[in-house]
Structure formats: C-alpha cells, structure tokens
C-alpha cells in the first residue's frame, strides 16, 4: 500500500528535487515535508499530474514556544479517482509564519486557511480574504497556540 504512496512522492522529487526535503512514513501514511515557498506549486502539480483532486483538510499545529520550527501546517490530499491519501507538511519558524495560499488551486482551502490563521496566527500570503472565522474579530491572541491559556486571558464579562 505504502509503495504506491511513495511513488507519488518519488514523482514529485523527479519533477523538482528541491520540492521534497524529507519523507516520513508512519502508521501506513506517507508525509512529505515540503518547503513553504513552493507549496502552491506542489499542490497544483499533485492535482493536475497525480490526480489528487480533493483537498481534504488543512490543519495547523504548534510544537511549543521553545521549539524551532514552531509551527506546522498539514495538507491532507485525497483523490476521488484512485482513493489514496497523502500528507504534505510545511514547517514554519515563529518569526515568519507565512505560507503561500492554495486558494488558487482549491477553493475549499479558503475556510481551512482562515481557520488556521484564526487559531494559530499563520499568515497565508495571497489569500483573498484572510480574517478571523471562528472567533470574534476583536479577539486577542491565537487560541490554539501552546502559550495561550485554556481559559483565555481574562474571564468573561459583558463589557
């Protein structure tokens, strides 16, 4: 099963050797760690050439404030044709959590990216409408960062 998944990553490497910096395999899933700057091109290549036509999910993750790279953005791609899944992982430092948007590749990325921006503060460069989606616009901080306290910075009051 995973040979098939590895073959997709191999083709990605063949196309451009700089696109894949690391390949991880665990629990029957294959993860390709990709450079942040090229993620939109990689996604377009995978969609057009490898038939990964459905973006299942984008989710961020925080490794903790003392780690470097601190943030991860995971792209879960799925194909409605050959029914395989692959994960792209982008590692980001705390100083410049910026990724190019993939809204040009899949329009569904819009809300996923807004959610990641809202909860982690990862900026998606070129996103047409990057604003908070779940929390109110005046909310202070990014809720899913590890240094954000569970109960928020202050208790609730109507004012």
């Amino acid at each position, binding site marked *: 099963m995973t040979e098939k998944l590895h073959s997709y990553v191999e083709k990605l490497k063949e196309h451009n050797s700089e696109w894949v910096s690391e390949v991880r395999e665990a629990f029957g899933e294959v993860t390709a760690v990709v450079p942040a700057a090229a993620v939109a091109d990689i996604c377009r290549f995978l969609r057009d050439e490898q038939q990964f036509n459905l973006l299942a999910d984008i989710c961020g993750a925080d490794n903790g404030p003392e780690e470097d790279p601190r943030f991860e953005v995971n792209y879960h791609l799925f194909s*409605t044709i050959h029914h395989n899944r692959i994960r792209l992982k982008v590692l980001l430092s705390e100083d410049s959590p910026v990724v190019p948007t993939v809204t040009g590749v899949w329009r569904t990325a819009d809300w996923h990216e807004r959610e990641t921006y809202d909860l982690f503060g990862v900026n998606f460069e070129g996103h047409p409408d990057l604003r908070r989606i779940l929390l109110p616009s005046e909310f202070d901080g990014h809720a899913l960062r590890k240094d954000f306290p569970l109960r928020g910075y202050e208790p609730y009051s109507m004012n």
Partner: protein
Amino acid sequence: MRPRLLKPVLQTFMSTSVENFPGIELLDQPLESQMTLSMGPQHPSTHGVLRLDLRLDGELVIKAVPDIGYLHTGMEKLFEYKKYQQGIVITDRMDYLNPLGNNLAYVMAAEKLLGLEIPERAQVIRVLMCELQRIASHMVWFGTSCLDMGAMTPFWFTFKEREKILNIIESASGGRMTPSYFRIGGLMMDLPAGFENRVKQFLENFPDALDTFDKLITGNTIWQSRTMGIGVISAEDAIDWGLTGPCLRGSGVDLDLRRDNPYTGYETYDFEVPTEPDGDVWSRFKVRMRELVESYKIVRQALERLKPGPVKADAPKVVLPDRDDMRKHMDSLIHHFLIVAEGFNVPPGEVYLPIEASKGELGVYMRSNGGPKPDRVHFRGPSFINLSALPVMSQGEMIADVVAIIGSLDIVLGEIDR
C-alpha cells in the same frame, strides 16, 4: 424608505463582511437597488446559530456570505488538556446528530496510534450502531429540511422513528444523545439482554415508515418544484469546494469512504452507493433517501453477524478491566487505577483518520507526543466544508430557496464551529 442615519452603519457593515470572497465576482451596483439582509444567528431555519449576510437585489441573492463561530466551543484546545479517554466525551457534543460517528473517528485514530486490534464482535456492533445513528441523523435532516420549506407533517413522523433509535442507543450506552459508547480498544460494555429484539422490532417497522415518507414528500409536486433545479453545483465544482458525503454524491461523484477507504470491516458488507447526477437540492434529497435504505440493509446484515465474543481488545494497560475482574485480581485493580488516575501513554506520531459520517468525510488529525494527553487533535468536520460552498450554490437563487439549500446541505453548527 431607509433612514438617512443608517447609511454609514450599513456601509461599514458591508465593507467588513462581503468583500473579496474568492471565486465570486462582486457585482458593483449602486446601493439603492441592493440591500443587505442579516439572516440569523437566531433564525428558525439556519439550523442553529449560523448567520448569513445576504446581499439582495429584490428577491434575488447576489451574494450569500456565511458568518460562523457563534457556537465556537474551543474543543480542539480542550482536547489537549484532557486524557485520551476523556476526549471521547467531548466528541459527542461536536456533531450532536451523529455522536457515535464522532466517537468512532476519535477512537479509531487513537487505536491507530496505539496499534490495537479490535475484536470481531466489537467491530460488528460499531457498524450496527453507526448505521442506526446514520438513520437517526438523516431523520432529523428530513424532518427539519421539510419544516424549513413549510411542510410540518414529516417532522412528527421522522422524530417518531428517531425516538425509537434513541431508545435503542440508550439501552446500550445509557445516553440518548451523548452515548460515548465506543471506547479506545472496544466498547464501553457489551450489549444488554434483549437488544437484538429491540433492533429487530425497529427494522420490522422501518420500511413502512420509509413508505410513509415517500408518500408524504417524494411524490409531492410542491416539494419537487421547490427542490428541482435549485442550488445546483456541478461535479467539478463540488470536488473543488471539497464537498463530501451525500452532497458530493448528489452531484454524481461516486465516492463513499465506507467502500473506498474501508474501516471497521465495511468492505465485507453488501451495500450500494447511491448517486444522483443533477447536483441540485432534489438530488441531494434523493441520495439521502436512498441511503436510508442502504443503512437499513447494513443494520440487518450486522445483526445477523452478531456472535458472542469479547468486546474489548486484549490490552490491559489501555482498556478498563471488568468490574468482576477488579474484585478478584490485584493487577486489574492496579490497571484500573492507573488508567483512571494517570491515563495511558500513546506512542508519538501523527495520524489522519477519515470515516464516512452521516454528513460526509469526518477526518481526525491526531498527534501524540508520547504522553497521556494528545498534542493536537483536529477535526475535519464535513459540515464546515459543505457550508463553505453555500455562496456558490445560492448565487442567483431566490431568497426563499436559500433556506432550501441550507436544509439540503444538512449542516450541524456544533461541528462547524467546534
């Protein structure tokens, strides 16, 4: 006539909410012929606390922008502070029409990290309960989407059927809507005595109920003219917008994770994947109605397969021991204490586990750092993605049809906002 005082308020309001939506050209018409209608968050047919910014030209919708987050619960943050087994309780409250599906996705992700083998009986019971829950979830969709469009009668019939399923689930798990029945490594406990008879009784009457629904709604001319050709989305667009589940199959894409990425032994059951080609509200309606029949078939097959056997995996460090064992064996008591007080360590790693919930692909991204609490849990809620395609579906429709489209998407705000 619009009061003069309101104008600046309206303009600033619009500039923050309806600008720059990708994929949709903004029609720049003078403000006089347009109006903005804020629908929700308290509205009877937005299925919860969804708010829509509708920019209208007369009755035509130029643009519909969903505004979500009014039920944001911070669940993903809370998972990081709860042990793995405590997280199951939170998943119940996510998609509260399909709690067993959420349980299953979460539990299977943890089991994948732990590498647990689940006994055959537990797998069959999981399939059985999930399909019953799918029927119950579709019952709520059917009742409420008819209610939105002014047909009140189906609501009483569907909730009657749903009540029967809730009673069955309650008899097994103790909870009507928040069962938490699936645990990491198996089930909470085995099925109670007389459970099979209850299910059989339900199955006996269910085809009649389906007939009633068909008679009430499917052949109804008003219903057909309200739904046919409304909210059309093509197959390419549906994939581009990431739709899954009945919404995708209503656009003619033959995809069902139960068949294509099988889990819990779904590949051994005999069922069809219904698709409809048109991509409108009527197609999505028909897909769900046919899915009810398929779920009914799966429940019947699962019921035949129920054989006596263990319902918990053989992993004493993860699965709670039986009460009886705890009274007799010292090590069971120690394991119980350790699991409850400290939790169990999960090997580090990350998984993404998708299942076919009643609304589409429910994916769980779970990352462990080796401790008793997850490092990150992310839910890919199908309603979240399906709702994001609402603007493209409702563009150019009448305002009354927006309600029909929302109903056909079958959204649950608990899952959208998390």
